[in-house]
C-alpha cells in the first residue's frame, strides 16, 4: 500500500518552515534584549565585560539550537499525528548513516568553536597584572568578610577593615580603573567570593590562597557593588555579605591614609606581634594571633641571655635546613610561621628516634618562642608534626 500523503508539496512546506523558524529565532533574540533579566547584569569590570561577550555568543547559539530542535519536535507532533486514514504502518525506516554523520560533525564543530572562544576569554579573566594598583587579602570566616590591605610587596600588612556586624557589610574600597590584586584566605571552611556585577566568583579554600585580579571600569567610579559568599558554609551562609566600593585614586589614597592612621592609633593587640612579612596571606581581621606557649616537655624557664636560634616556616617548608645550638644549656628557638591559616611546629628528635622536644602548634601568621631543654652534642633531626615533609637538622655542639 503506498504511503498516504496528506500534504502535496513537501519542499515548499519545508522551505516555509525554515523561513518561519529563522525569522522566529531572530525575533526572539531581538526581543530578548527587551528582557534584561535573560542576561547577566552589565559588567562593572573589564574582565566581566569579556565574560558578558562570551555569554552573549553562547546565548545566541543556544537560542538558535533551541528554536530549531524544539521547532522540529513541535512540527513532528503536529504533522505526524495519527489520522483515521492511517490504516497501514508508516515506512519502517531504521536509520540513515549519512544523517548520523552530518548531525555528529555539525555539533562537534559548534562545540569546538565554543571551546576556543571560551578558552580565549578565560585567559583574559585569569590574567594577573605585574603592577596592581592595590593588593588586598579578602578574609572569609564564618560568617563575615574582612579585608586586609597590603603594601606593594604583597606581604606587609597595612590595616584590616572591621569585620561586618549584623546588617553592616564588610566593605572593600578600591580605586576604579586600576588592577586590584585579591588574595583569598579562610581560617575555617570553604567560602566563595562572589560579586554578581563582576560576573565572577572564586572559592576561598582553607589551606590554600587563591588569587585573582579585577579592574573596575573607570566609568563606575562612585558605585558600590554587592557581594556575598557563594559556597555553603553553615547556618549563617545566607547573610555573609560584603561590598566593593569603587572610588577615584585620590579619594582612595586619602581613605587609605586615614585607615592606616586610625589603625596605628588603636592599642596594639595583646600577644606577640606578627613578626616578619606574611608570605601567602594574613590572619583573620585584627585579632591577635595565637601565641606559641613555651613547650610542656623539658626544662623550666630559660636563664638570662639564652642562645637564640631563628627559624621560620613558609610555603610548607622551613627556611633553613640546618640550625645550630650550644650543647649542655637550654636555648630558645624563635619560630615564625608565615603560612596563613596553617599550623606548624618544631619537633626535635633524638638520634635514637625518641622525641627530645615538641613545640606547641602555631597557627600562621604568628610567632612563638620555644624554650628547648639542654641537649648533648650531636645531630638531631627536626620536623613539623603536621607536615612531616618539613624537615631539617639541628647540630648541637
Amino acid at each position: 500500500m503506498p504511503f498516504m500523503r496528506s500534504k502535496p508539496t513537501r519542499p515548499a512546506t519545508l522551505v516555509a518552515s525554515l523561513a518561519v523558524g529563522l525569522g522566529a529565532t531572530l525575533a526572539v533574540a531581538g526581543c530578548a534584549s527587551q528582557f534584561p533579566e535573560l542576561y547577566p547584569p552589565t559588567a562593572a569590570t573589564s574582565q566581566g565585560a569579556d565574560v558578558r561577550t562570551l555569554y552573549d555568543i553562547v546565548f545566541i547559539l543556544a537560542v538558535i539550537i533551541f528554536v530549531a530542535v524544539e521547532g522540529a519536535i513541535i512540527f513532528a507532533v503536529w504533522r505526524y499525528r495519527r489520522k483515521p486514514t492511517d490504516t497501514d504502518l508508516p515506512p519502517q525506516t531504521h536509520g540513515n548513516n549519512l544523517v548520523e554523520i552530518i548531525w555528529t560533525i555539525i555539533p562537534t564543530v559548534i562545540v569546538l568553536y565554543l571551546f576556543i572562544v571560551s578558552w580565549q576569554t578565560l585567559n583574559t579573566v585569569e590574567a594577573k597584572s605585574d603592577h596592581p594598583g592595590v593588593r588586598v587579602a579578602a578574609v572569609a570566616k564564618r560568617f563575615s568578610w574582612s579585608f586586609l590591605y597590603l603594601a606593594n610587596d604583597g606581604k606587609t600588612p597595612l590595616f584590616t577593615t572591621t569585620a561586618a556586624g549584623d546588617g553592616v557589610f564588610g566593605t572593600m574600597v578600591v580605586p576604579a580603573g586600576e588592577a586590584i590584586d585579591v588574595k583569598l584566605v579562610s581560617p575555617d571552611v570553604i567560602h566563595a567570593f562572589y560579586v554578581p556585577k563582576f560576573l565572577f566568583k572564586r572559592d576561598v579554600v582553607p589551606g590554600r590562597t587563591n588569587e585573582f585580579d579585577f579592574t573596575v571600569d573607570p566609568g563606575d567610579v562612585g558605585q558600590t557593588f554587592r557581594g556575598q559568599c557563594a559556597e555553603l558554609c553553615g547556618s549563617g551562609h545566607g547573610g555573609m555579605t560584603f561590598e566593593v566600593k569603587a572610588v577615584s585614586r585620590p579619594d582612595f589614597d586619602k581613605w587609605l591614609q586615614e585607615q592606616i592612621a586610625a589603625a596605628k592609633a588603636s592599642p596594639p593587640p595583646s600577644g606577640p606581634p606578627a613578626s616578619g612579612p606574611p608570605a601567602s596571606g594574613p590572619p583573620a581581621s585584627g585579632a591577635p594571633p595565637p601565641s606559641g606557649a613555651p613547650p610542656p616537655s623539658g626544662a623550666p624557664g630559660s636563664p638570662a641571655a639564652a642562645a637564640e636560634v631563628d627559624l621560620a616556616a613558609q610555603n610548607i617548608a622551613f627556611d633553613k635546613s640546618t640550625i645550630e645550638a650550644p650543647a649542655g644549656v637550654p636555648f630558645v628557638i624563635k619560630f615564625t610561621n608565615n603560612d596563613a591559616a596553617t599550623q606548624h611546629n618544631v619537633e626535635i628528635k633524638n638520634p635514637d628516634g625518641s622525641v627530645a622536644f615538641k613545640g606547641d602548634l602555631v597557627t600562621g601568621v604568628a610567632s612563638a618562642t620555644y624554650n628547648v631543654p639542654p641537649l648533648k652534642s650531636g645531630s638531631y633531626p627536626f620536623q613539623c608534626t603536621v607536615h612531616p615533609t618539613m624537615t631539617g637538622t639541628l647540630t648541637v655542639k
Partner: protein
Amino acid sequence: MATTALTPAATTYRSSLYEWVTTTDHKKIGILYLVNSFVFFFIGGILALGVRSQLAVPENKLIPPELYNQLFTLHASLMLFLFIIPILAGFANYVVPLQIGAPDMAFPRINALSFWMLPLAGIIMLAGFLTPNGAAAEGWTSYSPLAQRAYSGTGTDLWVVAVTLIGTSSILGSINFLVTIFKMRAPGMTMFRLPILVWTALVTSVLVLMATPVLTSALIMLFIDRNYGGHFFDPATGGNAVLWQNIFWFYSHPAVYIMILIAMGIVSEVLPVFSRKPLFGYKAFVFATAGIGALGFSVWAHHMFTTGTVYLPFFSFMTFLIAVPTGVKMFNWIATLFRGQLRFSTPLLFALGFLTMFLIGGINGAFSAAVPVDFALHDTYWVVAHLHYVLFGGSVFGVMAGVYYWFPKMTGRMLNETLGKIHFVLMFIGFNVTFFPMHILGLEGMPRRIAMYASSSGWGGLNLLATVGSIVIAASMLPFLWNVLVSLRSGEVAGDDPWEGNTLEWATSSPPPPYNFDHLPEIRSERPVFDARHGRTSSHGTRA
C-alpha cells in the same frame, strides 16, 4: 501468537505480605523498588515544599537557617540516592529479564538484598532529624571542612552510613545486571538485538560498578576524619579540603548519567511504539550511550572550576564534547517521530515532555562548560535550574512515561487516560513555572543554599512564582495517586499487549507468570513481538 494460558485463578491472585517481604522474583522486587522509591519521592517533595515555603518571600522567618540547611540537604540526598537511582534500577529489574527472554535475574537472592538495604538506608538518613543537631546539613555534596566533626553533628554520620549502604546496594545490583545481560539472553537475542532499555541498563551498570566504589572510599575517609582522628580532608591538620571534592565528583559526575541513561532507555522504548516505526539509528544509539558513559568519567572537575585547583581547558573541552553524543540521541529520537503515526497516549506525552525539557537542561548546561561564564553562574540558581531541567524535566518525565507504559504489564490493568493527561499537563506547567525563573534568579546573582534573601535584592517576585509552581507540581501528584489506586482495583483489563509493543515483555500475560514465559516468539531483530505480529519471522516465510 497465542495468549499465555494461565489457570483462571491467576488473574485474581493477590500475593500475601509474607510473599512480598520474602520474594526473590525480579518482577516483585522491581515493584518493591518502584513503591519504595515513590515513598522517598514524596518525602523529598515535602522537604522541597518546605524549602520553597521559606523562600517564597524575602526575609522570611518561617524556617530557621539551621533547619533550612537540613531540608535542602535531605531533599537532594533522598531524591538522588533513594528515588531516582533506585527507581531506574527498579524499572530495569522488572523489564530487563523479560526483554531478553530470561526467567529471572542471575542472582535472585542478592537482588532481594539489594532492595532491602534501601528502606533501611532511608530510615537511617532520616533518623538524623531526631538527633540533637538534626540531620545532615552540609548539602548533598558534603564538602569538607564543613562536613568535619567541628562543624556538624551526628546526623552527618548517619548520612554517611546511609549513603554507603545505598552504594553497596547499587554495586550488588550492577553485578547482577551485567551477568544477567551477558549470560541469560534467550536464543536469537544477540547483543545488537537487545532493546535500548537493556543497553542503557548495561552501560549504567558499568558506570555503577566503576564509580560507586570511589564514592564509598570517600565516605569511609570522611567517617575516619570524623570519628577516628583522621586528617584526610581537614587542612588545619595537614589534610586537603579539595581532595574530598575530587574524589566525590569522580563518582558524582558519572552518577548523573546513572540517573538518566535508563530514563533515556524508557523514552527509546516508548517513542517507537507510539510512532509505529522503529527507533531511528539503533546502532548510533548504542554507540552514543557507550560514548556518554565513557566521556562521563573525564569531566568531573567541571563542578570545581572555581576552586582554583583545576586544569580548566581540559575539563571545559571534555564537557563541551559530551554534548555531541547527547545531541545524536536527541536527533535520533526526533527522527523516530518523523513520518510516524503518533498516538498521544500518556506514555508518549511524558516521553515528549522528556525531549522538550531535557533539551533545555542540556542547553543551559553548555553555558557552564564555558569556564568564564561558569565563574559567574556556579553556585547560583542557574545551576539549580539546570539540574532540575535534566533530572526532573528529563529523568522524572522518563520515569512517568515508564510508569504509564508498564503499569498494564505489571498489574494487568490500564491506567485511566484522562487522569494521566491531567497529571501530565499539571506537572509540565508546574515544573516550568517553578524552574524556568531560576535561570533569571541565577543571572541576577542569587546564590544557592541560602535560607533567606534581602527584600532589596529584587528576587522576591520570581521566588514567589517558583513557589506557586511547586504547589502545582504537588497538585499534579493527586490525579496520579488517585489513578494508581483506582486502576489497581477497577482499571480496564490490559491483556498481553495493550500498546502493540515491540519487545518480549509484551509476549506474555499481564502480569507475567512467575517464570515469565510459556512460549517465546522467534527473535530475529530488536522488535521480536512486532515481527511476530506482522508476519516477519521465518515461520511465516517473510524475512524482515
